[in-house]
């Protein structure tokens, strides 16, 4: 049955409308979960609040297990789902820059907009810096094009690379995520106890 757009059940012209509705819902849930607070987001780096890790890893886990079960039930053709190609160099360099920006500014790009939506001054400055960064990146693109397209691996997946089944990967990911939740709970308890 799915994906609904590529299978022709929904007209591709609805793509942007659906994206807008999902974006609004995503922003609302981010704000409602407290992701508009830079102190809360930065807590993951200092060990006093791991809500970012819990929320995002839970979302990944639920979406992943949902896709595996939908595929088993033939409700979705998983081979038609778009897989982003991997550019190893830009992923590593971009990840380091994004991590530094996150720890310094207290926001990631998506959460900074939720901060702007409720009028947070630090989020406004962060978003201004974000657009400045986009401008610099676009202007300097010919110089960094080699890094941007470096280490292209194509649309690779962990399953293809290691030759394991989708179900086994899902199970291992769930075990790793739950282990991470238990570990961060222990870290959080120790950090908050020391602060008190």
């Amino acid at each position, binding site marked *: 049955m799915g994906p609904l757009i590529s299978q*022709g059940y929904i007209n591709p012209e609805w793509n942007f409308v659906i994206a807008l509705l999902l974006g609004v819902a995503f922003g609302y849930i981010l704000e409602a979960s407290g992701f508009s607070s830079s102190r809360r987001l930065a807590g993951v780096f200092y060990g006093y609040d791991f809500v970012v890790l819990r929320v995002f890893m839970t979302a990944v*886990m*639920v979406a992943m*297990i949902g896709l*595996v*079960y939908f*595929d*088993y039930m*033939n409700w979705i*053709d*998983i*081979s038609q789902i778009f897989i982003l190609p991997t550019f190893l160099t830009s992923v590593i360099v971009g990840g380091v820059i994004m991590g530094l920006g996150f720890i310094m500014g207290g926001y990631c790009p998506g959460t900074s907009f939720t901060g702007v939506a409720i009028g947070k001054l630090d989020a406004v400055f962060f978003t201004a810096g974000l657009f400045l960064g986009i401008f610099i990146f676009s202007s300097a693109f010919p110089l960094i094009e080699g890094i941007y397209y470096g280490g292209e691996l194509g649309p690779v997946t962990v399953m293809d690379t290691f030759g394991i*089944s*989708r*179900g*086994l990967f*899902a*199970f291992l990911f*769930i*075990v790793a995520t*739950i282990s991470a939740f238990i570990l961060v*709970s222990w870290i959080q308890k120790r950090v908050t106890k020391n602060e008190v």
Partner: protein
Amino acid sequence: MNKTYYFLIILILTLGIGALFFPEKSYIKEISPELLFYKMNNPSRFVTTDQVAKLIIESDPTLFLIDTRSSDQYGSFSLPGAMNIPLDELVDSIGIICPKWIDYLDIEGMKVIFFSNSDVIADQVWVICTRHELDNLYVMRGGLNTWAETILMPQKPSEYSPDEEFALYDFRRGACQYFVGGSISIKSDVVADQVPRVRRKKKTVVAGGC
């Protein structure tokens, strides 16, 4: 920790354990509906019975004939060298071509020609295979019914027909002899022009010397 968290952990772990036992699916990429529609409207996939007969007679190594009728019909009569892939055995329950047939249908450089009694079933097989991104597929126009009419029992054209029709008739009679056997003699109506004989004078031995 809240009891709800324990419940959620057990639930997601159970679902994860269940996922371990799911069978692996093999996916075959499909062409877009627009491209399939375009190819379906293109009649270049059809080959005539005469073209098929010529390829068989010439023992074309790139020819691969596939009989899409039932195995019973295939057992009673088929074209020489044809393989039987019935329509109802081609795809599995979810409409994907069975992997055992892919090896036969996806040979690089081979011309795969489907045929059935008419060309309806063969054309359905062509659509299914083309949808699964397989190339070099053709359908024998009219199927075995047209094969019987044109190759096995060719009709003599009227005497006012153009030369091409007579040439085709001669080819069909020859093909009929090839496939059925027997002793059909091909008699050409073309009368050879009389070549005038030129008598040359006998060379005489040179008499005398310089």
